[in-house]
């Protein structure tokens, strides 16, 4: 695929703005390969250092609530049913029935065919998490492998949007990326972004899953992050959760550095979503610290940061109960989805 067609698409404005109107596979490659390298040891040490922050008492209480507000409560199983999705939505709306002060999560994240059930179950609670409502995110584009024709990926996306999905979590073609076909990956993201367009001209938010566990190097993660942003992604997301390793703190730190740099360059804020493998409050707090000390605390906002997680919520609720009651709680005192 050539990039000429990509140029015609509105969301490619970013790439044209940064690289120039003569956007080609070559100029894109030069740009991505000209990004500064990443020293893995240094990156991991910085992440480990951020992980030693000690968030206690009032800070911890605030952090726990912040985590909940940033969760994309997720179920992505072949065995998912409308019933399971309704249960998930119920949990999203009222995470801890014993404590009404508990905030709601940002979104529920489901497969495309489950979107109608999620929308229905949310009812009036469906909407922008910034307004205390809950969004519906749908994974699309032949998630998790992405191995389908572009036509199918776009149909998958358009379907989910038509059914009321507010956010689309797409996967990039890792095979193409690793083979160096950056233009192909770019064009697909642009096309999916276009498929996110609703009838009224607005767009569903596009989260671009890099599947960092398959990208092999941090340099690749940085390039893929830039590629996704240049192609119009609203969020860059680490993982599908189906590949190990999923989200790690160093990878997330690196992606936060990219969005920080993008903001420095353009003034525009891009979101980051680590997904998969974040199960404990303790880990999630490390991510919050990393967000606040890297991109800035304005990123601790559902429009700019999300946790893709399922079991994390219950651990946060247990911790929250401990802080509220002063006693350690147990798994029987939170609901399973």
């Amino acid at each position, binding site marked *: 695929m050539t990039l000429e067609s990509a140029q015609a698409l509105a969301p490619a404005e970013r790439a044209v703005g940064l690289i120039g109107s003569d956007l080609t596979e070559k100029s894109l490659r030069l740009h991505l390969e000209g990004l*500064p*390298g*990443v*020293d893995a*040891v*240094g*990156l991991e*040490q*910085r992440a480990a250092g951020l992980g*030693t*922050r*000690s*968030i*206690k*008492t*009032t*800070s*911890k*209480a*605030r*952090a726990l*609530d*912040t985590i909940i507000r940033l969760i994309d409560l997720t179920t992505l199983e072949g065995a998912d049913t409308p019933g399971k999705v309704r249960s998930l939505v119920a949990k999203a709306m009222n995470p801890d029935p014993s404590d009404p*002060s508990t905030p709601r999560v940002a979104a529920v994240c489901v497969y495309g065919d489950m979107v109608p059930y999620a929308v229905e179950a949310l009812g009036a609670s469906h909407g922008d998490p910034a307004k205390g409502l809950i969004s519906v995110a749908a994974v699309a584009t032949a998630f998790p492998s992405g191995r389908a024709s572009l036509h199918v990926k776009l149909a998958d996306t358009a379907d989910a949007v038509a059914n009321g999905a507010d956010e689309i979590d797409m996967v990039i073609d890792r095979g193409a990326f690793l083979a160096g076909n950056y233009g192909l990956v770019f064009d697909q993201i642009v096309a999916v972004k276009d498929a996110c367009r609703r009838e009224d001209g607005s767009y569903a938010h596009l989260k671009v899953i890099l599947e960092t566990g398959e990208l092999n190097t941090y340099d690749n993660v940085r390039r893929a992050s830039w590629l996704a942003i240049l192609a119009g992604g609203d969020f860059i997301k680490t993982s599908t959760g189906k590949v190990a390793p999923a989200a790690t703190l160093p990878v997330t730190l*690196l992606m936060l*550095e990219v969005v920080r740099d993008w903001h420095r360059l353009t003034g525009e804020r891009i979101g980051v979503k680590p997904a998969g493998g974040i199960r404990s409050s303790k880990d999630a707090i490390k991510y*919050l610290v990393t967000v*606040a*000390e890297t991109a800035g*605390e304005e990123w*601790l906002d559902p429009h700019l940061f999300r946790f893709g997680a399922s079991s994390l919520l219950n651990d946060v609720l247990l911790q929250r109960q401990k*802080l*509220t*009651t*002063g006693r350690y709680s147990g798994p029987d005192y939170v609901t399973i989805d």
Partner: protein
Amino acid sequence: MTEISTSPTHSFLDYAPAPESKSILHLKKSYGLFIGGEFVKGSGKPFLTVSPSTEETIAEIANASAKDVDAAVAAARKAYDSTWRKLSGADRGKYLFRIARLVQERARELAVAESLDNGKPIKESRDVDVPLVAAWFFYYAGWADKLDYAGLGPNPKALGVAAQVIPWNFPLLMLAWKIAPALAAGNTVVIKPAETTPLSALIFAEILQQADLPAGVVNIITGAGDTGEALVNHPDVNKVAFTGSTAVGRAIAKSTAGSGKKLTLELGGKAANIVFDDAPIDQAVEGIVNGIFFNQGHVCCAGSRLLVQENVHEEVVERLKTRLATLRLGDPLDKNTDIGAINSREQLDRIRTLSDIGEKEGAERWTAPCVIPDKGFWFAPTIFDNVSTSSTIAREEIFGPVLSVLTFRTPAEAIAKANNTPYGLSAGIWSDKGSKILAVADELRAGVIWANTFNRFDPASPFGGYKESGYGREGGRHGLAAYLSSAGWGAK
């Protein structure tokens, strides 16, 4: 119960205090000298050790007079002749292993004591200083019965009594760097910790008692410069090891000249941290921060001169400032503190004086935004940009959280500027291009070169300087040579 307040105006970054508890410490009101395995009274006028973060007194410390130095050296001599030299290497090693384990067991206590007395952040004493102390003893323990393999020829011999004087920046770690190889090689020791930071050494003396180390093998005497002077010049000392300022090191080199005492000196530095335009930029910024703001810049190998390639100069400095704004200055015992207290008023005055000179000489001063506590000794992280090579702050060791930024155009210019100092302790190189790093590393006249990292220490890795940064190496196989005399290396 904890009140859960979630006011939206509250900044996430206002981390609630997370102080490490001092209850783990069981300090005495006053400490004597550790001579011959016992705490004894000093005959000098005792002094107080204070916490630099609060200016509160921690304990009263004995002051060793020349007479006490005599007693300590005599105890070390006696232990050397009657016990330690007769012990097998394996048994010496076992004592060192014991010490390593006891340090691990009492790690938290030692870390708290260190931060209290020195002012360094608990995260550093906990995660860097004390673990390295244990590692140092563990490493050299294994050498004690393998000295034939140290590369000094067969059957190398201990020197006898080692006089050791250490600084206040890494009180316990410097003690470990000195004592562990000395004992492994079969020497006995009289060591003097710095006047402002004696506490952890005195707790370490308790560890030696718990380890049942034979009396007199290690003697710890506290005092000021005159005590150290008496110690290194004592006629019955065979070895002198000193870490500290180049001025004092020079004086020791003079006073021990012709004495036959083997001398190792680990002195000052003015390290260049060279950032090329192809550096991994985010890690380089972290490395610059770690290079000069680790331990408040109280590090002889600190990367105090940032040499940045001119085409990325502005970007690097801008990123650096952004990063420095996230540093937390304050209570050393708070687990989130990045920048602790300056160790003493005297040192603070020196940092202030040199910084003022830097400003007067025309460099652009920038100070990280942070609140300075009312009590104690503090200095906010500071950058001087557009510093000229002739500027005082580009030449003199400041030993504080002050970075001088200079630029260069070509690798040759970077090398020339990096080497343009009487010091030669350490240097940093940042580039993604391996061949360039190795070529630059070859040209730098410095004993330790960190490429794409900075301020890393390991007991297996030799450390020490070129030129006026001293001589001899500490750490690794090379570190043993400082405490042994070689029997035969000749042509056969």
